[in-house]
């Protein structure tokens, strides 16, 4: 079941929403609507399903409507039209139409939020800040403090419990923000650029912690970011927004490989593909290999050849007439221990990072095998292609 189901949601800010929606239906642009009615279109006909346990990243530049959409999920922005269903036990609650009590119930027990600028209460101690949401829930002082301490321990700040927020560093403050959201024990977390205000090093550290916490606690996370590298790192799914519309929604690799519009392609071209791409999307297909006699040419210059058996399996390999040792590499195996001159065969799902490390260690191209058949090869040319952001332009051509 989807944890969040956003169906044809429009969010318009202003006083003449009906008129603006009518203009939107006629196909007016955002700017035309501002000029005619003075209203700002935040989200235009968004449709996404976020499954339980998924980290869905809403990606886009500032003003693209990603925060507007996120804030609609817990009702901070009201939905002008459409359905926004959020899971509540066995049923789905429509945030767009539910009454104030239901909305409060959803906010106190189903959906919590982490803010870009932390939004901690400056007059409250760290532990009271973490307990803030529990207080709103109506929990007694002793109980909520105990629970807040538990969450502070989880983010490693229990020794700071009596400090005020301004005595903490940015990274620590956002940990408090995370603990406050986790204290609610809600299934869904909304994170509005939570790491954007932090130093790169702290940011990457908190990203790792978030991924680790998510794996342990299995929350559904809707995450807003303007940084594609961050989105690719933590997202299981990414939705890219441009001027209030969702223009592409898919898995990270799909987005990197098949950007739908030049706008997305531009984003993708500036990203680091190491953690995203896998061997299959980089490789030169085995059918493209040159054949010389009964052998296949891996590298013409130093006379590296392989020969296949009848089933398409790699039988032997040689370089400069000397036989090469074949090695089957499996995910998790230590790359450092591979000897130079080893011809490694791996699954096409090998990550680009591992593939490059293997190539670096052995000094030879990689062979990719699936179901006992050679499917492709990874050589320097393929890596350079990906690093230069050419992997998709090649696809398009």
């Amino acid at each position, binding site marked *: 079941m989807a944890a969040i189901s956003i169906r044809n949601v429009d969010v318009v800010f202003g006083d003449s929403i009906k008129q603006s929606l009518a203009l939107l239906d006629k196909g007016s642009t955002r700017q035309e609507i501002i000029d005619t009615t003075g209203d700002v279109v935040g989200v235009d006909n968004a449709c996404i399903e976020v499954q339980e346990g998924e980290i869905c990243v809403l990606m886009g530049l500032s003003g693209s409507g990603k925060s507007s959409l996120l804030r609609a999920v817990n009702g*901070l922005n009201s939905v002008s039209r459409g359905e926004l269903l959020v899971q509540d036990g066995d049923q789905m609650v429509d945030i767009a139409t539910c009454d104030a009590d239901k909305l409060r119930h959803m*906010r*106190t027990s189903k959906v919590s*939020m982490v*803010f870009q*600028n932390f*939004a901690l209460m400056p*007059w409250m101690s760290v532990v009271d800040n973490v307990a803030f*949401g529990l207080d*709103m829930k109506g929990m007694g002082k002793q109980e909520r403090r105990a629970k807040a301490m538990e969450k502070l321990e989880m983010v490693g700040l229990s020794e700071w419990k009596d400090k005020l927020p301004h005595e903490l560093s940015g990274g620590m403050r956002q940990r408090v923000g995370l603990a406050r959201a986790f204290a609610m024990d809600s299934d869904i977390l909304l994170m509005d650029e939570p790491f954007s205000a932090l130093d790169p090093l702290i940011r990457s550290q908190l990203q790792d912690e978030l991924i680790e916490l998510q794996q342990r606690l299995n929350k559904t996370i809707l995450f807003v970011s303007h940084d594609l590298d961050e989105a690719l790192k933590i997202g299981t799914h990414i939705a890219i927004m441009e001027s209030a519309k969702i223009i592409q929604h898919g898995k990270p690799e799909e987005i990197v490989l098949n950007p739908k519009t030049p706008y997305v392609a531009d984003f993708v071209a500036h990203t680091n593909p190491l953690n995203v791409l896998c061997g299959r999307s980089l490789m030169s297909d085995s059918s493209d290999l040159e054949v010389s006699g009964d052998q296949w040419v891996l590298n013409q210059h130093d006379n590296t050849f392989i020969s296949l058996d009848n089933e398409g399996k790699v039988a032997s390999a040689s370089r400069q007439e000397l036989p090469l040792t074949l090695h089957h590499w499996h995910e998790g195996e230590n790359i450092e221990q591979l000897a130079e001159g080893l011809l490694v065969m791996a699954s096409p799902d090998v990550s680009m990072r591992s593939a490059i490390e293997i190539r670096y260690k052995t000094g030879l191209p990689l062979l990719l095998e699936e179901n006992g058949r050679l499917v492709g090869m990874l050589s320097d040319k393929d890596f350079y292609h990906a690093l230069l952001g050419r992997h998709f332009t090649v696809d398009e051509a």
Partner: protein
Amino acid sequence: MNWITENKLPLGSWMEAFVDWLTFNAAGFFDAVSVSLEWMIISMVEIFQWFPPFVPMAMTAAIAWWLHRSIPLVIFVVAALLLILNLGYWQEMLETFVLVLAATTLSVAMGIPIGIVAAHKPWVYTILRPILDLMQTIPTFVYLIPTLVLFGLGVVPGLISTIIFAVAAPIRLTYLGISRVPDDLIEAGKAFGATPFKLLYKVELPAAMPNIMAGVTQCIMLSLSMVVIAALVGADGLGKPVIRALNTVNISQGFEAGLAIVLVAIILDRICKAPGAKEEG
């Protein structure tokens, strides 16, 4: 031009007619207010007077210590009060203190809720702003006259005039404080499911507290500045010897009474001001 000067608008007469109408129709109400406020103030003064002077002195010193943990401040408070006692203005000082206390309490009790409403409803503030400006700019003597007519001679017209003059401070500063609460704190409150009431007293009021406290302190100072004027309509207190000294050109009495007012002002200011300022820093 003659036509303009000859046909004078009867604005003053209208106001007079209105006050006459009030006196005639609502005399019972104003008398009741006057009697109950007067009774309240006089009995409070009596309670303070019942104690030997060192009891209020010790209490003030204790409050100063409790709020600020500063020995110099405690020494100053005790010395100042001893000086007032020595000059023979103890009774007047108590009367002034009670007047200021009553005016501030009533102003704050009215001002903070009005300020909160004004911050939440912009149209209320639009209406309120010219009224507040008016209350603070009309010379105090001008509204002293109708309050005198409505409430009779004594401490009550002084109290009412003081409130009219001082209530704007807590209203304005509460309004300012609440409307300046950062949006992300409000959003955080809402996102964690605060009801409008909880949002007010768990987020907005604490966040606005430095401003509200500044409003209270200002209100105290404004009330104190009305002491002499209140004495003109018969309010007891340190204003009375000042007026008497003015009428008899008595330099020494004027100086002593004036000094006593200044000392009360400094004590109140030092005791009230810092806690708010500290929170801000």
